[in-house]
């Protein structure tokens, strides 16, 4: 299985080659991308009509009665999206929630055992979808709900489509940082942040891609200067925020924008920003499984998940949707105002081990390499 994945997925450049063609980005692994969501402007009108449309057989879906979702999305948002769907169709949505790598490895493990339990998989890691696609476990589906998603945010073979974009932000404790909050990535290199920084990555190195993006854009010296400040490292962005809220740490690099957004919304003593010189962004994607136990219910839920109404719930939870017809989360700038830095996941996958080893040398600790 491993060998198959190497020979197929790593040589593919699925969406980023198209993305670079579309926006004329520079060479190298990091592309500087313009207004992602504006690319499919004008799709808005048709999307509204498409929201109710579905490619699924509703009667069959109802008789299946259940749908199983594997997701890495925050449960509060998942619960909110599920609720109206269950009420409308009477189909019970069960879900497994874990980190992106947890979700991907669980799906791949089940596939290897030929005991697929998931109907739909959603994870904030396109690299994982490339891996899943390469072992042939994803089902192509051209959903009527995804028309409002730009062509460069989807697999041309329709095995997956981006549903959200997560930006790596700087977040800080307003009481501890005071009147001079860090605005640029290099600000956090300052010795005044010695033993005051926090960032996240699980042991499997799921925080690696955005750090790598940062290093490619602004030099490995930037990461080395962070490491010199002896940052604390936790497993998730939620825990980053927890440490900032409690005042254990003063500032964070590369945390999730939606988690920072929620903390501020809840009136915690935190704030966040997107450095103007560039913000690493990660695509979350969703796909159907070929051997799904509830194929029709899965399609129906997929259509709901990607519909304008469904995605609006996601935006209300602080996430940027991949749909071009939805506004950013309240208080956040539109993505076209940000300079987004996107990784070529295919190339990242190919070099992953060496890169994680490099991060291990810089920061120490466990990166899954």
């Amino acid at each position: 299985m491993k060998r198959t994945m190497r020979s197929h997925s790593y040589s593919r450049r699925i969406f980023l080659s198209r993305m670079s063609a579309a926006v004329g980005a520079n060479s190298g692994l990091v592309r500087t991308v313009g207004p992602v969501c504006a690319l499919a402007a004008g799709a808005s009108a048709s999307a509204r009509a498409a929201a109710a449309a579905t490619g699924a057989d509703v009667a069959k879906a109802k008789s299946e009665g259940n749908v199983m979702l594997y997701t890495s999305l925050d449960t509060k948002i998942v619960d909110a999206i599920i609720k109206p769907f269950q009420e409308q169709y009477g189909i019970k949505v069960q879900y497994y929630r874990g980190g992106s790598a947890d979700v991907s490895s669980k799906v791949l493990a089940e596939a290897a055992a030929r005991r697929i339990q998931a109907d739909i998989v959603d994870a904030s890691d396109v690299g994982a979808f490339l891996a899943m696609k390469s072992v042939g476990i994803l089902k192509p589906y051209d959903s009527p709900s995804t028309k409002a998603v730009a062509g460069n945010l989807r697999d041309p073979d329709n095995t997956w489509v981006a549903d959200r974009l997560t930006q790596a932000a700087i977040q800080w404790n307003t009481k501890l940082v005071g009147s001079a909050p860090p605005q640029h990535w290099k600000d956090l290199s300052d010795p005044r942040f010695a033993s005051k920084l926090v960032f996240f990555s699980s042991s499997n190195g799921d925080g690696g891609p955005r750090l790598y993006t940062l290093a490619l854009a602004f030099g490995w010296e930037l990461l080395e200067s962070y490491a010199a400040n002896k940052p604390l490292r936790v497993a998730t962005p939620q825990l980053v925020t927890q440490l900032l809220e409690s005042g254990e740490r003063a500032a964070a690099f590369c945390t999730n924008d939606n988690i920072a957004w929620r903390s501020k919304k809840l009136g915690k003593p935190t704030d966040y920003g997107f450095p103007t010189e560039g913000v690493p962004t990660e695509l979350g994607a969703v796909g159907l499984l070929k051997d799904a136990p509830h194929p029709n219910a899965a399609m129906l839920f997929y259509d709901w998940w990607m519909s304008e109404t469904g995605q609006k719930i996601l935006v209300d939870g602080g996430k940027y949707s991949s749909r071009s017809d939805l506004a950013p989360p309240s208080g956040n700038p539109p993505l076209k105002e940000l300079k987004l830095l996107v990784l070529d996941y295919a190339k990242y996958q190919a070099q992953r081990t060496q890169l994680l080893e490099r991060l291990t040398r810089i920061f120490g600790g466990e990166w899954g390499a």
Partner: protein
Amino acid sequence: MRAAAHAGAGGVPTGAGEASTAAGDAIRAVTLGLAVVAFLLFIGYPLCWLVFGAVGLPGDFSPHFLVRALTRPENVAALVNTALLAIGVGLLGIVIGVPVAWATARTDVPLRNVFHALVGLAYILPPYLTSVAYIILLGPNAGYLNRLIASTGIHGSSINIFSAAGVTFVIAMHVYAIPYFLTYGALKSVDPSLEESARMLGAGRWTMLRRITLPLVAPAITGGALLAAINSMALFGPQAFLGLPAQIVYLPTRIYGALSGYPPRYADASALSIVLVLVTVIGLSVQRRYLGHRSFVTVGGRGVRSARHALGALRWPLALVLLVVVALSSIAPLAVLVAAAFSKVWTEPLTLDNVTLANFVAALADNQIAARGVFNSFRLAIAAATLAMLIGLAIAYLDLRTRLRGRRLLDYLAILPLGLPGTVLAVALLQAFIRFPVPIYGTIWILLIAYVARSMPIAVRGANGALRQVDVSLEEAARVAGASWLTTVRRILLPIARSNLMLAWLLVFIPALGELSATILLYTNGTETISVAIFRLSDLGQLEVVAALSTVLIVVILVATLVTQWLAARGRGGTSAVPNM
């Protein structure tokens, strides 16, 4: 693969060849045989898969993974950190556990029953929760205690819990209970006539302690410290919560790193696990060699209580020392968690404005996974503890009461899971049962198997300790008097060993109730446990809800503990009646 597993099974006789068994005692052979088969299936078979995995089978056969496990600098660093952790915890376990056990078991120190219960509480608290509590208490900048230190004006004296010392300390605060309980149990059951003889021969209190009491309980002390040390290496929770933020790696966290990504590197993880298993085996052999030629029989079935030492003026100073120990190991972590459970915002002090019950509603009513988790954990822990003790008894019986070939091997095998992080055991089980003809993977049964396998060391050691305390002459007497094997076990062995067995059951039940590291890789929708709910909510930063769930977990454990202890105490009453049977 299967053929090889069977070959392993075939290497161990299953009781049929027992020469000294009287004719007609087939029940004995069948009972013991079934236990051995279950045991081999739960531990031997998955371990075979772990070994296969370490050399890259199936598909990638190569010694490369094993070589790399031992030569990569990151792995060597992890091995050194892990070894230092084990040594530190083992020593702390003796330094803390043994004096406290002596104080509560053999002196008239005030509040000794309270202290005894609070040590139990330290063991009850799942170590990942203790870690969370200690982040709140000793976070270098915002920790309660560090803010207190800072307010005294002493600069540069803050304690950083995110350090190797922090990991060692927090783990020791959990596992010192193991040497404590084993030493306590041994001290309680030392035959008082030995001490009385020493006294009559003119030995002073300290001489008696040094020359009679301590040597008698030495097996319990070293055994307890060894268990604590080995257990510390496998406690993934504190290593991850406190070590990883400071970029300190241990073998289990390296293994977790190899497994939690995609594609999971089973071979690397298996190879690293083999290293851990080797360390465990070495520790075990040391203990065996040390204890090999001593007699442990200290109880002859008589329920006579030993006299307590009168401490005089030292009573309260000693109580103060014990208070510090239990405050650090159970009271403070628990208080922090309970306070957070009732707080709207855990970082704020628990004032009237900040009090809420909403976290409990969120934990038990709003969150279906949490509610289901409480139920699943409870039934799994009861089933696992019972099954593990039955198998453990059989293994211990084979070891102590028969001359069966291969019994030592069983005993070694039984201790191995202690050196396997739950994560690794889970991977062994996954690899073993994904291909198993009976659907076990993806059901609650794989969790039960994991729990039984994980608790096997404690179950076997516990049963072993309990049986060692029973003089074989009592059973021989029963057999001579014509009782069958089953009757002898039922009427002699079990009643005498009963209270120790129940305590061992409890020592299996409690960790099973909070088991996390294996569960997290084996659970599926519908089989979530309370620890899964806690872990997932903790990852999501909902600390107040985590605290509420933890409080529920602790209450459930406390109730179970009190009930079991009450039953065990009744068992002790039964023990004293044995000679009259």
